[in-house]
């Protein structure tokens, strides 16, 4: 395992943590529930690893594990983004009638 690469991942982790804190602290309090479901969907990025395992088909067992992982991740992606959008659609600056 290449040392440069390990450290470049540590750099990414350090920077992303700063970005994460900065960005999340600015999220409007109004939207904390949609925030939970949006990060839910984003954390389904595990789909990347799952696809590789399911597609490589090294052996039956790992293919099954990968397939389940793809299923679980896609479920999260679909339900996470859809429910976030469903909630956000409800937020209106001015009520429709008033």
């Amino acid at each position, binding site marked *: 395992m290449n040392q440069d690469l390990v450290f470049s*991942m540590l750099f990414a982790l350090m920077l992303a943590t700063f970005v994460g804190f900065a*960005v*999340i602290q*600015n999220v409007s309090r109004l939207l904390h529930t949609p*925030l939970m479901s949006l990060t839910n969907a984003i954390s*389904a990025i595990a789909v990347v690893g799952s696809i590789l395992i399911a597609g490589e088909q090294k052996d039956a067992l790992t293919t099954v*594990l990968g*397939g389940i992982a793809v299923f679980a991740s896609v479920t999260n992606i679909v339900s996470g983004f859809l429910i976030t959008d469903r909630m956000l659609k409800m937020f209106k*600056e001015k009520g429709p009638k008033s």
Partner: protein
Amino acid sequence: MSEIVTHLSYLAAATLFIFSLRWLNRPASARRGVAAGVAGMSLAIFGTLLHPEIITYSWIAIAAIAGIAVGYPLSRVPLTAVPQRTAISHAFGGLAAGLVGTAKYLIWLHEGELTSFRVGAIVVEVLLGFLTFTGSLMAAGKLQEIIPTRPITYRGQNAVNFLLLAIAIAAGLGLILDPTRAYLFPVVIALSLSFGVLLIIPIGGADMPTVISLLNSYAGLAAVAMGFVLENQLLIIAGALDGASGFILSVIMCRAMNRSFTNVLFGAFGQVQAVAGAVEERVMKSASAHDAADYLANATRVVIVPGYGMAVAQAQHRVREVYDSLTKRGIDVKFAIHPVAGRMPGHMNVLLAEADIPYSALLEMDEINPDMPQCDVCVVVGANDVVNPAARADKTSPIFGMPIIDADKARVVIAIKRSKNPGFAGIDNALFYAENTVMVFGDAKGVIAEIATALKDEESAAAA
């Protein structure tokens, strides 16, 4: 060449994820944030599918279709079930991380490609992943009340848990020192699965929202670990964003409840329920919905404080009717939103938005408190702890120090709840016995509907 395209799409995906969360900073740009998230995820998937090591797409396609089939209905759950849905979603996320880690271990074991670094990253990924999996399932069960919500404790519980953790870490270290000790791997899996269960058992159902946010954080860290396993920066970045979000939300909740992490995780809160009623019978003034409507009709400034009871009763649409009637008469109506009103962060905002109440009418605690003394009528709809003055004054109260909405400073307080029972924290609330408070007992939906009808009747009477 295809490798460059993959890299580029990962880079773009990471950037889009950051923008996605950035745009949640205000409602006007929030839906753009979802679009950015979807675009980022599509690019990530696209880039992954280009990978030359993938030899067949059929299993991927089948699993993805199954995922869509399950994911779609999960996105249509009623808003009251959002906490449970979130918990299940974390369980799925943890499961995926755990399975990918396990598969990677098996593949590399077979190919002789295991290094200590790789095994270390895999162990972290698997531990966090499976712990999140069972822990989130338990949390979902408690929220849905399939599993008993009361905290289950026994002597030596923490000792047992820490012992298990120590064994898991020892097994992990054993694997790192000699990656081929494959018999240790199932041990790690089994321990992390049971750990998830054991950690949640002693925590009360009502503390589940904080636990869910923490599990969100763990799911993020599992993705980070997967990033180290697969040497993939996109996973690290998305995981870190997720981890930060879960962490910040749980800190916000703890702070707004004036409790520490340790207290939430090990405090077995809600166990002793209702040490309350030192039975010095104090008197509540009770009134009818009609009386409440009269108070409201004669007010100039009204503040509505919604709480968990409004969510349970699904009363938000009736609240909207009252809001409409009153604003039509020129009465100024504002909603005071406490950061932990309800059972998840932002709970009240979503419900009121669902009922088409403009978010400009929703004020945060800190914004509205200075104006409470100028408020004529404050309507407390199924809120309790978040308006309990003991938090300000009574040093012995378990919620002392928690910031609250100063409902008691309004000229008249109308409190709507079903009974004299306490709220989440299990303690009595002096507000309900105060001079200037009248209680309207009943289900929030029913009571508010009556108030709305009374107001409308009066209107048509006046018009006629």
